[in-house]
């Protein structure tokens, strides 16, 4: 029983990071009605960024966090102008394929450069001990940082001008354009922001688990599940969904081998979507 509770608490901590990752996805979806299939690659980008910044440049691991945000943002903007800008009006299929194509390129390059060997960034921090279970410092800090960044995102979206512009464009792009908002720049900013969130969540995940070039896919699936669980295009929903997923994972992994987790998550994803179509409708824009 205690073991289960420990798993659950552990799950909540990790779940906060999942929520952060999902925020990047839902932001882009909410603003421009595009499903960003480079999401997984962005997460991997964050993971490797941490590795190189920490080992090559000797940065303290958490110092890499702001750097990754910037890198993620820049890459996101580049991806927007390369693959997304031209296909925005052309229906879901095209943006799916174009972002997927970029994902293939990035992962392909990654595999060619780094092969599929696992990488690890050890983070030594004092943990919190409870009975015979320890919650490593890394987990606590990761969760705390995830919440902090989520809070910053909220602040950005609701208290700054650019945030207001983003929300206006998300609501009605034409009206925003008519009101003098440069919607294309706003869209590219929002995309960059979504990528940055994905990348920084990758960095945080890298402080917790070993990873390789192909890890992105699993976390991308988790982001989708979270998005569907949260059923809203807003940060709070994504965070709650992330924690919910973390809890479910925590409960599940005490009963079955970890390799089944993707199957469980996929089943959950499909089940939620089928049983709660409103979850999809809350997502679908007419």
């Amino acid at each position, binding site marked *: 029983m205690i073991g289960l509770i420990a798993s659950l608490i552990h799950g909540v901590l990790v779940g906060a990071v999942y929520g952060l990752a999902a925020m990047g996805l839902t932001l882009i979806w909410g603003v421009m009605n595009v*499903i960003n*299939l480079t999401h997984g690659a962005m997460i991997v980008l964050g993971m490797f960024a941490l590795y190189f910044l920490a080992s090559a440049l000797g940065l303290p691991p958490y110092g890499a966090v702001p750097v990754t945000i910037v890198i993620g943002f820049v890459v996101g903007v580049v991806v927007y102008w*390369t*693959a997304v800008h*031209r*296909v925005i009006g*052309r*229906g*879901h*299929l*095209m943006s*799916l*394929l*174009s972002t*997927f*194509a*970029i*994902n*293939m*390129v990035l*992962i*392909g*390059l990654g*595999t*060619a450069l780094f092969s599929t060997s696992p990488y690890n960034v050890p983070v030594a921090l004092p943990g919190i001990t409870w009975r015979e279970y320890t919650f490593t410092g890394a987990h606590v800090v990761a969760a705390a940082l995830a919440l902090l960044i989520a809070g910053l995102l909220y602040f950005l979206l609701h208290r700054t001008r650019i945030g207001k512009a983003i929300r206006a464009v998300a609501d009605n792009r034409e009206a925003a354009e008519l009101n003098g908002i440069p919607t294309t720049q706003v869209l590219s900013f929002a995309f960059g922001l979504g990528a940055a969130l994905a990348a920084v969540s990758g960095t945080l995940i890298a402080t917790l688990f070993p990873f390789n070039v192909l890890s992105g896919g699993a976390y991308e*699936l988790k982001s*989708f599940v979270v998005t*569907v669980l949260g059923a809203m295009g807003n940060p709070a929903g994504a965070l709650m969904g992330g924690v919910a997923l973390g809890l479910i994972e925590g409960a599940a992994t005490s009963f079955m081998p970890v*390799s*089944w987790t*993707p*199957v469980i998550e*996929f*089943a959950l*994803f*499909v089940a939620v*979507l*089928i049983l709660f*179509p409103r979850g*999809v409708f809350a997502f*679908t824009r007419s």
Partner: protein
Amino acid sequence: MTVQELSPSVAEVAAQQPAEHRRAPLWRRPFMWLIVLVGLAFALLPAWSDNVQLRESLSLAAVYITLASSLNIMLGCGYVNFGNIVFFGLGGYICVYLVSERLWPLAAAALAAGVAVSLLALIFGMGILRLRGAFFALATIGVNEAVKAFVSNFEPWGGATGIYLSLDVYDPLGGPSQALWNVYFLIVAVMTASLFLSYAIKSSKFGLGLLAIGENEDAAAVLGVHTPRYKALAYSASALLPAIVGGLFFFKSGIIEPAGAFDLTGSIEAIVMVMLGGLGTVTGAALGAFLYEELRGVLLTTEAFSHFQLVIAGVLLLAIVLFAPGGLMGFIYRRWPRMRRLLE
């Protein structure tokens, strides 16, 4: 969602075509004979020259053409099946299992595999086809991964190591080397069937309904198209021939294991092939598959490029989506509008 938006040239050219053209019965249309010709060419060219290398190359091309033209059926109603390879792999497993463990004759096993997989697809499809757009696409990847995980743990099918076929399964077909020829002819037959099926659907009322769904699913429903049923049938139809050809392919290879049978890269490549050739056209799927397979063959032999297979496919896909969404056929139709009458 406008899938057909990428072939504006096709629509423009359709305007020049007399409406009565569509009423000629299937067997009298020139395109059907073109398909037969292609099938014969595939069968006879390597046979006459007894050229095993050519046979192998064409065999792979035929498999891809089958996958691509079946994929086209679903793509026509606007749903991208990223995980389409699952039909191929599952069909392969069922067929190989029936042949090696149950000692079924090949043709029956392959057919049974096809029927079983398309029935499963019908059932599964009814569930996941309620998802729109990217959710559906991702769900198909999930289906592939889930089936792969399941099969890896399924002992009767060899678990993670898979099934090895012993040489005596080839005896009923005249021994190993003769069997390879016979299986090849079967593969060519299936390829031809997939082109027929794709064309028949496209020219039918069913195909019109799918097209309407692809243009605007809600409008199609209001017009009376039974959208859930149509999508499920299309999904099921798109599973049949890949499953059969998967059975034949893995029988020929002599071995099947989870990683190879459910390889997502191959799945994605099928999509690239359809896009390359021209979405929504039968010729396009075939042409794209053939060209891509040749390209791939060349690249894989060059040491440097073999690492970059995914990258190249990705760049190609991106280029097509951004600059030539109509693919090769889109280009051809724009340049030579009269081809629209002959090809589909």
